[in-house]
């Protein structure tokens, strides 16, 4: 061709080669995705939210599974931190989920399940002869049942109790062998342990109640009624619990107490107020034992179940944990189930919970394990978690919102001095509306 040219355009053959290159590259990438290790081995991808030594414990379990199940190869990926849980949301939105994931908070289980992005496990469970109601602790079993179906299984849970400093109890004239058993005794002990300097600043404090979502259960209340399927935010017992929390604002300067508490940083750091003897009683759970061993090995401490008022519930605990689910978009459901079935077996649960020091939610896992039977704190924690007063997230899609709003109500009442009755009534109306709308939306 002899066309005069002002500037040389891109020669066409090169462009073609370029395009061909792109096509070839994509083909290789696609081929990589479809790779199977050998014709008979199915690879499944598993996302976990555990990190650090907990992730290593997961890795050890998965190595054991891969060894004992030659036809399946599980590849584990860590999705740690808040961004990990955001990533879960985006993965569901885009349908780009792994085969199994344990990165769903118990709080969000219903929200995902009712949106149809999780595989119901009922037929698998039946086939395997498993019964969640009988295998799991009552609180966890209730939490896992959503509109009559099971969408996920947990392998860890926690127990709530109060840890107390025995030395401070002795100093304050309290009997460290008889910790508080009622709310009235708790209040008295809290006051006895509190010390001020001559200027009226805190030197030490006894106890500051927090987490209304849990204490409401202690007082005999509830946030949702499974039978009537209704929100019960303004249950009179919830109100009693909130009023009790507010009563601390009358006895103490709570803003000052909060600043004093914040001064020591988070409870779970070396300088936590409980570890350094500036807080006599700490509302916590079995995981704190590890921290105390690490940061305050010399601390003389004990524990007692959350004390209840007359008419309240004895030995109340929260129940939770990360939930293992099989996304609806999973392409190897049978293999995914085989893995999940094994991970939630008493053997695997006991092994994992023992290595990361969590309470096992599977009853049989605790029964056959020497550590769980002999460690005094775990013996105590497991008994509470298996009792009738354990409560997990209500099976409603709006629970993440609801729970945050309960926290805001608590702050507004305790620190902001707003009327508890009015706050809970507003919350009731607001959450009723949210739930109705969410249900309508999910039904279309």
């Amino acid at each position, binding site marked *: 061709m002899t066309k005069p040219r002002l500037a040389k355009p891109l020669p066409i053959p090169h462009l073609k080669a370029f395009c061909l290159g792109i096509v070839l590259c994509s083909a290789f990438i696609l081929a990589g995705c479809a790779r199977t290790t050998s014709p008979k081995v199915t690879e499944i991808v598993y996302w976990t939210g555990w990190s650090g030594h907990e992730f290593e414990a997961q890795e050890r379990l998965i190595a054991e599974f891969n060894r004992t199940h030659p036809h399946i190869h599980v590849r584990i990926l860590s999705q740690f931190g808040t961004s990990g849980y955001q990533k879960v949301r985006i993965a569901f939105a885009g349908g780009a989920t792994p085969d199994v994931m344990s990165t769903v908070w118990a709080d969000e289980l219903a929200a995902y399940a009712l949106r149809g992005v999780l595989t119901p496990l009922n037929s698998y469970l039946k086939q395997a002869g498993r019964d969640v109601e009988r295998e799991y602790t009552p609180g966890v079993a209730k939490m896992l049942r959503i509109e009559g179906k099971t969408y996920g299984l947990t392998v860890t849970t926690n127990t709530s109790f109060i840890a107390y400093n025995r030395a401070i109890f002795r100093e304050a004239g309290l009997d460290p062998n008889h910790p508080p058993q009622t709310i009235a005794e708790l209040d008295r002990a809290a006051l006895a342990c509190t010390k001020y300097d001559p200027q009226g600043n805190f030197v030490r404090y006894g106890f500051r109640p927090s987490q209304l979502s849990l204490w409401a259960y202690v007082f005999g209340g509830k946030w949702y009624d499974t039978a009537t399927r209704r929100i019960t935010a303004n249950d009179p017992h919830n109100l009693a619990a909130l009023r009790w929390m507010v009563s601390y604002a009358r006895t103490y300067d709570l803003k*000052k107490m909060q*600043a004093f508490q914040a001064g020591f940083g988070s409870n779970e750091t070396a300088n936590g107020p409980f570890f350094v003897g500036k807080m006599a009683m700490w509302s916590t759970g079995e995981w704190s034992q590890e921290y105390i061993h690490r940061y305050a090995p010399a601390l003389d401490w004990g524990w007692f179940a959350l004390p209840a008022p007359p008419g309240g519930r004895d030995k109340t605990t929260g129940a939770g944990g990360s939930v293992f689910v099989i996304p609806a978009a999973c392409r190897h459901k049978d293999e995914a189930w085989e893995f999940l079935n094994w991970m939630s077996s008493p053997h695997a649960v006991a092994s994992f919970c023992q290595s990361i020091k969590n309470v096992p939610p599977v009853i049989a896992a605790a029964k056959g394990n020497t550590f769980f039977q002999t460690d005094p704190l775990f013996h105590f924690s497991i008994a509470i978690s298996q009792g009738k007063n354990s409560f997990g997230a209500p099976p409603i899609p709006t629970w993440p919102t609801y729970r945050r709003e309960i926290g805001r109500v608590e702050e507004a009442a305790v620190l902001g001095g707003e009327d508890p009755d009015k706050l809970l009534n507003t919350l009731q109306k607001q959450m009723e509306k949210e739930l109705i709308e969410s249900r309508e*939306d999910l039904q279309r």
Partner: protein
Amino acid sequence: MNRKQPRLRAQERENQRNGTLFALPWLLGFAIFIAYPLCASLYYSFCTYDAIRPARWVGLQNYQRLFFEDPLFWKSLSNTLYMVALGLPIGLVASLGIAMLLNQKVRGIALYRTLYYLPSITPVVATSILWMWLLNPEMGLVNLFLKRVGVANPPAWLTDPFWSKPALILMSLWGVGGGMVIYLAALKDVPEALYEAAALDGASRWSQFRHVTLPMISPVIFFNLIMGLIGSFQYFTQAFVMTNGGPQDSTTFYALHLFNKAFLDFKMGYASAMAWILFLITLVGALLVFRTSARWVYYGGEVK
């Protein structure tokens, strides 16, 4: 008919095609990652949308709820306006002040400049965690200093709803290095001759600053003001890391409320509506600044 015309046209077409091909990566990126999400968010703002199930058109419902049924929307907006009205001017003045100090002819000035700039290149999360300790009510350095100079009851900063926002503003002063560097460059550009002339006319230091420095660097002030305005309206990370909105919603800024709605409450449509309202507010703010700029921004060579 001119025989050359079609050939040139062919040439032009070819050039155009090649030009487009070269710009294509950017154009595609812009279309897919910016233009499409932008338009989609406008559409979703009229929908109920949880990012998982298909969106459903609900008309103005999201907007109506924002304005009439969500007290936290107004609270978060007022928190954000607080940062714009108070934090932004303080930040502008501070960065200009430091830039003026660092514009002195002193030994080791390069070292000082580095030191003052350093905090603005540390990650926000790291700075935030550092400041949580500095602002610690019991043993933070800030309160230790205040007690030393005789303040008997220093504020509880991040745990007090009244002091939490001032605490965040105080912290933001630590990161004024970015604006400072820009001011510094502008200050260096002011011709010495102007100061000499002013001094000969008997202008005081203040008059020199007021009538020489300020007008000469006004385009840069304008730039920093616009960027600061946009940044303040989108204030998010520090509150997310340090306070998560508390105490008592005092640090629930607009962007944080939006984030919670989108990622905790499964309300992407609602969050999209919030994003568009914020966009309009920012736009109006920026336009107002632009409108007034003719009166106070001086570009060299203009006759006033």
